[in-house]
């Protein structure tokens, strides 16, 4: 919007600074019809006038008693929030005057004796410059404002999309879990446990450098999907009360690769994989063991992705401390003993050490979820079954526990 150029507004203010009264009088006379004009006799009174009157343009003599023109120019340019255009006016006395004037911050330079026509046209030029500068500044403000609004809107949209994604993914995880777990609270607790462990590991130790904010955010979103592959396990096996046969167990173990593959397919459909890549790794490898005896790949130690090693501990802890139709909930102390005992065999010892430091936080999560009414999510309400049906779900022992039990035998 260039309306400021069309509408000149109040007259521009010009401050004339010269120690020669005749020069001041001549300049005032030449400019007073078109501009508001004031005069100062030396550098100090010029600085004062500039502060109080805020001129748009200063005609500044160089050789003056006291503060000379260069220093006055420097101070005018540096001490005012909105410094004026400065035209140095000098009866040349030294060869390097021009250079020094521009170094001091002057915008232009006129040589005395000054031709009045030249003075007027030069000032008109600077006036136009000031106008277009003001217009540019106004435009810039508008642009900045617009840019800020766009950024805010983009942030709002991103937050909305992210929130919908979060809820969608979490709901998907709970739907998948609902087949073999009545309450659907397992994924909610596991997510918190895994997050607590990862945060603890990010503070110190060998994994601190691998765990940044992005890792934590991805883990929080992806850990609930660890058992998504159970959708590919038939009811006869998934929901079987009691012990699985060797054959059935082999089928059960496939939920890892099924989940990993489903999520990997999803990753391939996206340019930017985001948390789904981590979700695929967790689903695939959360039943691997530190000693290489896990499944499906039999990876050893740090070959197992870190996120999957973290979820493995969180998964078993939650299974142990949860009440199941075929078992009471273990006390946290007993669950801890079991997990500690498996450090270096089933679990990454570094993660078990971190787990030992986080018991209070784990307890708090468990108690918080206990006090909550199950099935609070609308999306889960269809999964509610009568209490009497609970026997149907006796196979909800996590595979890790099932494996542990079978290996122990």
């Amino acid at each position, binding site marked *: 919007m260039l309306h400021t150029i069309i509408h000149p507004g109040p007259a521009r203010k010009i401050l004339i600074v010269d120690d020669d009264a005749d020069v*001041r009088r001549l300049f005032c006379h030449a400019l007073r019809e078109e501009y508001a004009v004031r005069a100062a006799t030396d550098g100090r009174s010029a600085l004062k006038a500039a502060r109080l009157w805020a001129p748009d343009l200063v005609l500044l003599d160089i050789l003056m008693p006291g503060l000379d023109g260069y220093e006055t120019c420097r101070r005018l340019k540096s001490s005012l929030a909105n410094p004026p255009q400065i035209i140095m*006016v000098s009866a040349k006395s030294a060869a390097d005057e021009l250079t020094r004037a521009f170094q001091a911050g002057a915008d232009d330079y006129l040589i005395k004796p000054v031709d009045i026509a030249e003075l007027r046209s030069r000032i008109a030029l600077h006036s136009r410059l000031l106008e277009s500068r003001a217009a540019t500044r106004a435009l810039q403000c508008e642009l900045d404002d617009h840019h800020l609004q766009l950024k805010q809107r983009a942030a709002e949209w991103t937050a909305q999309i992210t929130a919908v994604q979060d809820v969608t993914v979490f709901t998907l995880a709970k739907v998948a879990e609902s087949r073999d777990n009545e309450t659907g609270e397992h994924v909610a607790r596991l997510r918190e446990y895994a997050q607590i462990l990862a945060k603890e590991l990010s503070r110190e130790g060998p994994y601190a450098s691998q765990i940044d904010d992005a890792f934590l955010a991805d883990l929080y979103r992806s850990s609930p999907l660890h058992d998504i592959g159970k959708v590919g396990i038939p009811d006869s096996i998934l929901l079987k009360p009691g012990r699985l046969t060797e054959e059935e167990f082999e089928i059960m173990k496939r939920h890892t690769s099924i989940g990993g593959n489903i999520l990997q397919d999803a990753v391939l459909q996206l340019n930017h994989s985001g948390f789904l890549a981590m979700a695929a790794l967790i689903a695939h490898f959360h039943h691997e063991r530190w000693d290489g005896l896990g499944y499906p790949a039999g990876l050893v130690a740090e070959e197992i992705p870190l996120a999957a090693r973290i979820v493995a501990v969180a998964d078993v802890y939650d299974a142990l401390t949860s009440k199941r139709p075929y078992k009471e909930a273990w006390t946290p102390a007993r669950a801890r003993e079991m997990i500690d005992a498996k450090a270096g065999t089933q679990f990454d010892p570094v993660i078990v050490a971190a787990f030992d430091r986080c018991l209070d936080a784990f307890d708090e999560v468990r108690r918080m979820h206990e006090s909550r009414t199950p099935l609070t999510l609308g999306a889960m309400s269809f999964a509610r079954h009568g209490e009497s049906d609970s026997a149907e779900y006796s196979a909800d022992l996590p595979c890790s526990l099932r494996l542990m039990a079978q290996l122990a035998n």
Partner: protein
Amino acid sequence: MSNQAAIYSSFDADPDFAELVQWFVKALPLRMRAMDRAFHGGDLSELGRLAHQMKGAAGSYGFPQITLAADELEHAVRLGDSRAAIEQRFRRLSTLCQQARVSEPERDIANRSSAELAANFLSD
């Protein structure tokens, strides 16, 4: 001193500035008196400063010859020329100043006292 030859401001075509030029011309003796004091008092840096001022002002009022002479004087002072050389340039400037006239028949500003003029020149 050839007082008969007058030099005129090149502003003669612009009546708007005539009165200003008159003020300038009337104040020239004051400038010369100040320079004379500086010269005879041996204050060469003050003489140089006044010559510099004159150089800037005179041409702006349409007296380029005076500016030229003032420039020469300023240079001589700055370069540390001999007293004789400085004096010669000072006299040359002095002569030109005495010859300076507004080209129009000078309007009567005698109603303003010279004291008022002096006060105006020295004020601010």
